[in-house]
């Protein structure tokens, strides 16, 4: 019975905290150029929020919110954002990752365009890092067998 009570405290607290953690993670990604942070750091924080769900609740509960297929998709999706930005620069006539060329499609001057290019890249990195961290954690916990709901 004592265990049940402690469970409730943890569950409620997590339910309360997790949205804030995710918001903070997004904030860290977006402000990477000015204050400490960036794609990788923000992605880790986002991943931490999912891991928190996993620890506090059941594995099945976490699966409902973030299934394995979605995880795998986000793995690649983030990198594809990154490389797609690079491709756009390639197609618009510059070298790979030459963000200045993006000014042809975005209504800003080349210097600003570099800023937006870096930002897009950071977002991509953040998504991938989040997905990868969560999948590493999942794999290590379940030992590869995703059908068992342990804990």
């Amino acid at each position, binding site marked *: 019975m004592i265990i049940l009570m402690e469970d409730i405290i943890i569950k409620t607290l997590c339910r309360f905290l997790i949205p804030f953690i995710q918001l903070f993670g997004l904030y860290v990604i977006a402000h990477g150029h*000015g*204050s*400490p942070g*960036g794609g*990788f750091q923000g992605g880790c924080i986002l991943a931490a929020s999912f891991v928190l769900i996993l620890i506090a609740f059941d594995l099945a509960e976490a699966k409902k919110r973030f299934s394995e297929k979605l995880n795998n998709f986000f793995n690649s999706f983030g990198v594809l954002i990154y490389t797609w930005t690079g491709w756009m620069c390639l197609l618009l006539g510059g070298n790979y990752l030459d963000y200045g060329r993006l000014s042809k499609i975005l209504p800003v001057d080349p210097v600003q365009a570099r800023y937006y290019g870096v930002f897009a890249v950071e977002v991509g990195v953040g998504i991938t*890092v989040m997905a990868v961290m969560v999948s*590493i954690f999942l*794999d*290590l916990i379940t*030992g*590869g067998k995703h059908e068992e709901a342990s804990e």
Partner: protein
Amino acid sequence: MLGFYAIIGKRNLVKKLLGLNIFQWAIILYYVSIASKKGGANIPIVTGAHGHYEPAQAIQFLNPLPHCLMLTAIVVGVSTTGVALALIIMIHRRYKTLEEDEILESLEAFKK
């Protein structure tokens, strides 16, 4: 050097992996320490940037390039640790042990 000793000297596979980790982090710390400058330079964050723009002088900030490089190195280190951990799980499942000598013995027996 501590990490290096752990890699060679310890028998347990997980301890070897921890030694590897120590080794990698030592190098990362080393790079970060390169980045500081004499005279107490500060981290390159421009205060009060929204509002008035004051031209920042590069000399008062410490060198951020090694930090970026080390970010990449940290990522690489994390991935390597992840792969190694996955391998350890596979090994454990197969041999039910994580001590190097016992694994080698069972491998020898299997080969003969």
